[in-house]
């Protein structure tokens, strides 16, 4: 990896404001086909190569494909899980495309703004204003006033941004080479466009931003969905079945590439009912298995979740939450599947529910999910959300413990019946097909210890007791599965979960009067730790993204939090610091 040693923009008349800064936010906006996503991806890769951290989020319209597209890219000298508050660089190929992203761009006096030269429109009011002169560049190729296909705009933009950020052109060329090495024609076309624009950029002097060095030690970028998939593989996953759904599809797509070479299978099922059914079938065969979906798919899987718990067959279910209900807003984030994950399904059955904090955490939480599911032979749900799933985040290189979780497996002569109620913590050795003398009946119908169907109320009670003993044991195992932020003595408390971790990390850094409690396991809840954490609080707010305030209501059923304030709204764009500030002020008033 090469550190950006010298500037490639020789001119001296540009001023770089601000000096050395800690993070920069770039907003890249264009039409479908402008390659804005690729541009963001290349910039993020370049940041990682220089030893900078950062993250990138993409915004689409409701139909996922086509239309306008915006990328928010934040590069930073430390790990970030939040896209930032203000826009330092705005690059927009067509101002008309900016309309749909109201709120996503917020300029400040020193922001750099790069627009299409032939675009005569003005920036809308809501973006705010920079004191610096707008830089206009001829991205579009016009013939008789009509735009025709010219050089790739994203390559021109890449060249300009190298100049703006003072990143070496050699690094851009190298990154393009990595990205398109397997497609030489695409590579040479893109390189040619990049070089042409780069030569022009050195003459036209686009606005400069503060010099921003990384450590020079190469880092690694992946999305939340990739991290979930890879974390699962490292945790022993060998069978996956899923059905395409935004925003979780990339879990399956990553596994299609990476699981079969390790001897595992991936199936695209005909629907989510089938997906979880296949997972249960594979796990019935003794193979660690999982599925990934989003809210609508989770709804379809609900009956199967009960089967997994009733027949005591491990299954890991990842739910990348999106704004619901019904179809909702597929590409937007929300935290409103919490009730469903904890409560959904007919009858009484144990399950565990974990929450993902960010891309880095996604890998370790998958290990925990498989550990619990295999150890206790029940369904474990992992709640991610669109903000994590679709984000590409730079992280330290992975040091993974490739350690298969333990399932207690029966062998001939071992004794206990498949559903023996005397097992420690309600767990009895799992009889894996192929094991001689181990044949038994697995059933969704209530059964006795041998697995044979029964309609005896006393046995039903005993079996429920057996199955729910697991939940008590899990509660013991997981009582320290939480994170806290801020000083333990801070007077104001926030409880939150999942992707709110990112913004709250930064909030607490600038607001020392706050402390934060984030459960990693939502069910069973780490109540003892929570009670200890909240001692001597002056006030408590529950920050989440659900219209009903699902975490708030859930907690109200677990302990006395009658004085807690709800800081919540429906899903959509992730919370910003300014909004959090306002909501907290209103709530704490």
């Amino acid at each position: 990896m090469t550190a950006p040693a010298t500037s490639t923009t020789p001119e001296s008349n540009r001023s770089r404001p601000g000096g050395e800064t800690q993070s920069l936010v770039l907003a890249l906006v264009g039409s479908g086909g402008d390659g804005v996503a690729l541009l963001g991806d290349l910039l993020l890769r370049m940041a990682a190569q220089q030893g900078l951290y950062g993250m990138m989020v993409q915004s689409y319209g409701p139909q996922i494909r086509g239309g306008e597209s915006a990328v928010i890219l934040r590069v930073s000298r430390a790990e970030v899980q939040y896209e930032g508050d203000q826009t330092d660089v705005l690059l927009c190929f067509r101002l008309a495309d900016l309309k749909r992203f109201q709120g996503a761009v917020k300029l400040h006096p020193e922001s750099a703004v790069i627009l299409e030269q032939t675009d005569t429109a003005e920036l809308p009011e809501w973006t705010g204003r920079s004191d610096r002169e707008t830089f206009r560049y001829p991205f579009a190729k016009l013939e008789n006033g009509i735009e025709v296909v010219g050089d790739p705009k994203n390559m021109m933009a890449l060249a300009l941004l190298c100049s703006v950020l003072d990143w070496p052109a050699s690094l851009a060329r190298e990154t393009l080479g990595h990205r398109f090495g397997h497609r030489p024609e695409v590579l040479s076309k893109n390189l040619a466009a990049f070089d042409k624009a780069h030569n022009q950029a050195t003459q036209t002097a686009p606005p400069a931003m503060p010099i921003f060095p990384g450590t020079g030690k190469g880092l690694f970028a992946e999305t939340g969905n990739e991290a979930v998939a890879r974390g699962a593989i490292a945790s022993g996953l060998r069978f996956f079945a899923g059905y395409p759904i935004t925003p979780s599809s990339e879990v399956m797509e990553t596994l299609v590439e990476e699981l079969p070479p390790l001897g595992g299978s991936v199936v695209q099922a005909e629907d989510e009912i089938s997906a979880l059914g296949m997972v249960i079938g594979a796990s019935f065969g003794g193979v660690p298995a999982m599925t990934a979906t989003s809210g609508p798919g989770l709804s379809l899987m609900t009956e199967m979740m009960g089967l997994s718990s009733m027949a005591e067959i491990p299954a890991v279910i990842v739910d990348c939450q999106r704004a619901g209900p019904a179809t909702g807003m597929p590409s937007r984030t929300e935290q409103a599947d919490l009730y469903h994950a904890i409560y959904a399904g007919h009858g009484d059955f144990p399950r565990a529910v974990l929450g993902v904090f960010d891309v880095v955490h996604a890998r370790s939480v998958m290990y925990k999910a498989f550990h619990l599911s295999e150890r206790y032979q029940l369904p474990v749900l992992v709640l991610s959300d669109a903000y994590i799933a679709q984000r590409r985040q730079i992280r330290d290189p992975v040091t993974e413990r490739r350690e298969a979780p333990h399932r207690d497996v029966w062998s001939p002569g071992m004794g206990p019946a498949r559903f023996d109620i005397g097992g420690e913590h309600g767990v009895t050795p799992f009889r894996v097909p192929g094991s001689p003398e181990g044949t038994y009946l697995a059933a969704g119908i209530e059964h006795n210890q041998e697995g044979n169907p029964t309609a005896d109320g006393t046995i039903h009670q005993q079996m429920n007791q057996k199955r729910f003993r697991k939940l008590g044991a899990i509660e013991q195992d997981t009582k320290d599965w939480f994170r806290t932020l801020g000083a333990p003595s801070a007077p104001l408390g926030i409880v939150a979960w999942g992707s709110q971790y990112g913004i709250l990390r930064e909030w607490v850094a600038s607001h020392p009067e706050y402390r934060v409690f984030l459960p990693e396991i939502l069910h069973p809840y780490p109540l003892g730790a929570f009670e200890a954490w909240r001692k001597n609080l002056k006030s408590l707010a529950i920050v989440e993204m659900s219209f009903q305030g699902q975490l708030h209501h859930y907690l109200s059923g677990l302990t006395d939090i009658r004085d807690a304030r709800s800081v919540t709204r429906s899903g959509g764009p992730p919370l910003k610091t300014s909004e959090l500030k306002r909501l907290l002020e209103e709530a704490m008033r």
Partner: protein
Amino acid sequence: MKAKDYRTTLEPVWCTGCGDFGVLKGLTQALVDLEIPPERLAVISGIGCSSRLPGYTRSYAFNSIHGRALPIATGLKLSRPEITTLVVGGDGDGFSIGLGHLPHAIRRDVDITYTVLDNGIYGLTKGQSSPTTEIDFKRSRGLAGPDERPLNPVLLVLSTGCGFVARSHAGNLPHLREMIREAIRYPGFSFVHVLAGCVTYQTPSYGQEIYQRCDVLPQGYDSSNLTAAIEAARSDRFQLGILYRRDPKIGTEGAVEMAGVAGVWKAHAGTDRGIEDVAHEE
């Protein structure tokens, strides 16, 4: 091993005279023929009278939820190809609530044998019409009659590309034994349609009446001829035998491989590309 060695100690809950007894017998006889060790056998069902069958079969048995036996069997077989995987169930379980899974199980061609015990009625829930209830169905109880055309399961599976399709009758044990045996032998997805009586919610003689409407396929019938199979499936009378047997090109291992890198992935290739990149790369 003898047929009774494939039985558990559980006594069937079926009504005296139920056609399901014949299928349990024919199935265990076929297992004797194939010498499949019980520990290498999985029998999977959904819910219904006939879905109780796994509990009576010495195997890694799974009495799951209504209509979902095929996905569970698919997951098991793909992850444990050495386990002989059978699915049994009724017409309501397989052709109503679970029908959505059938064409896809056929498409994947995973080596599973699916035996449907078709008595044209919902027995467990006491006599409601099923997707194969005939329009002139004579009920013994006072439920409203169906006014929908029954579906033709054999025609359905043939049209969706099933590689092995057989039909038998629960009352013809030697034939049933042979059909199930040949289906299990087939290295791909196989389907056995078994006509069975329901003595309680059909007329007690229904099984016999249906049998009167059956013909065994004639000598010289070419089971590799799909057109002939479709014609046989469309016949007014029930044709018994191996209606269709496609030359199996993909064995169990092939099926696993196919599911791992199914053609459908081509459309999703290059997953680390942003969604809008395509235009500039082509």
